[in-house]
């Protein structure tokens, strides 16, 4: 449906329709973020043998995040006197916008996708790299040494881990012969890439945790050393924007892993085809999400000097070896 509309002549009607579709996706993502924060707190609570939020909104604390967000929006908006005002205001926007743009190319089901790009995977990697600017500029504009350090750490980490991230996906691209996410899903008809690319998957998963800067790779905002890293000086809804970007990336990354390695919307076995694709997609998606939450509550933070070594000396060689191996397998067996 979107494909036809993209090729039709422009007009106010089309603009309104696109706008409404985008708004609906934004609302869905906001809803997801609200409840994934709650889920994170609940999962972490149960793993640490406590209950987590259980006061606001019934036994399950269903309205806890809503209340938190309301509190954030009502807070006073503080811009430090010595901060670089225009960049301080611009940085959260630069950080958030790419995280939402990235969602455009992800195929949720066969029919539910906004842009069927030929370079979908590359688009994701390229656009998500732009968030680093928001983080770095936010850290610099705050005029605070903890913020600057956090921003510098975040940049170094995200750039270093982007390389193994892309290298590990090359195996998938080799096997499917396309950068188009739809075709990558179609190529998994006979076997998910998690089975054909186990090494690639593990490297990708580790690098993606670092890209999302979640524990054990949450050095950019490690509260015990840097107060809060790049967003120390941010308050109210500007801070909320940074957090929002982080959780939208969590959404996007879980969806991307589902698409790349877990067969997207396809059923695991042929006889289960009667269950619609959206259900399969959400099952896999929530499983990946749960693993992320699980990791967060079970790992300690990495040391800063080990972090870079791990990316360049461990992950990158393994990813390169995986490419070599995949090329060998492809030329021998496919």
């Amino acid at each position, binding site marked *: 449906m979107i494909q036809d509309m993209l090729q039709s*002549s422009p007009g106010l009607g089309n603009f309104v329709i696109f706008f409404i579709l985008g708004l609906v996706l934004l609302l869905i993502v906001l809803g997801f973020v609200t409840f994934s924060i709650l889920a994170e707190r609940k999962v972490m609570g149960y793993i640490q043998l406590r209950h987590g939020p259980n006061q606001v909104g019934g036994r399950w604390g269903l309205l806890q995040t809503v209340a938190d967000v309301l509190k954030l929006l009502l807070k006073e908006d503080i811009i430090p006197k010595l901060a670089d005002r225009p960049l301080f205001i611009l940085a959260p926007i630069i950080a958030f916008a790419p995280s939402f743009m990235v969602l455009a190319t992800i195929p949720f089901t066969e029919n539910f996708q906004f842009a069927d790009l*030929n370079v979908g995977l590359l688009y994701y990697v390229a656009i998500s790299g732009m968030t680093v*600017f928001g983080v770095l*500029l936010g850290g*610099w504009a705050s005029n605070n040494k903890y913020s600057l350090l956090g921003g510098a750490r975040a*940049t170094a980490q995200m750039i270093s881990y982007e390389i193994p991230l892309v290298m590990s996906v090359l195996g998938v691209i080799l096997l499917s012969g396309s950068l188009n996410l739809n075709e990558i899903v179609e190529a998994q008809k006979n076997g998910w890439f998690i089975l054909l690319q186990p090494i690639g998957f593990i490297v990708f998963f580790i690098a993606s945790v670092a890209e999302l800067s979640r524990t054990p790779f949450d050095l950019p905002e490690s509260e015990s050393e840097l107060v809060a890293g790049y967003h120390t000086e941010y308050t109210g809804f500007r801070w909320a924007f940074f957090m929002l970007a982080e959780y939208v990336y969590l959404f996007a990354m879980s969806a991307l892993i589902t698409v790349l390695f877990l067969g997207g919307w396809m059923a695991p076995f042929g006889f289960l085809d009667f269950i619609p694709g959206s259900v399969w997609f959400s099952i896999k998606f929530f499983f990946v999400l749960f693993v992320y939450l699980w990791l967060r509550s079970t790992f300690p933070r990495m040391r800063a000097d080990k972090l870079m070594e791990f990316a360049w000396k461990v992950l990158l060689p393994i990813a390169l070896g995986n490419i070599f191996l995949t090329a060998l397998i492809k030329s021998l067996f496919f």
Partner: protein
Amino acid sequence: MTISGEFFAFMGLALVAIIGGVLLLNLNKVVHMVVALIFTFVSIAGIYILLSAEFVAAVQILIYSGAITIIMLFGIMLTKPYDDESESKGGKWKKILLFLGVIGFAFAVYVGIYNFPIEQVPSALHENNTMEIGKAIYTKFIIPFELVSVLLLAALVGAIILAKREDKEADKE
């Protein structure tokens, strides 16, 4: 010229690209300049998309606005440049001459581009961009490609050697 979505998109992107360029020259703080540069790079990537060169667009964002500007920003932030805000003010004549020069340049470029003979080569590049580029690189342009990769490798090795030497000297002192 018919007014279509492409026209609007091109106008918007071109405007952002040019405004970014002008701001890059006129802003005072170096970090602000880099931000203006990012806007220019991203809108140029948008223009590539309009020309249905998706692969080049993605690479433009990944390398130019991703990697190169980050390195520039990093260098600038960690070295603390002096804020030189003094501006040389030329006389009236200099401004008039500059203006004439700009107009002359614009005229020359306009004439040059307007009558530029472009041969229309039918190509299927826009259909499966990435694959066609890959095929061209690995068949027709394999030797230049290999040469470039050797050059990059040499640069990489050189960078490592330079970094190591600095380390040793620091140890001696």
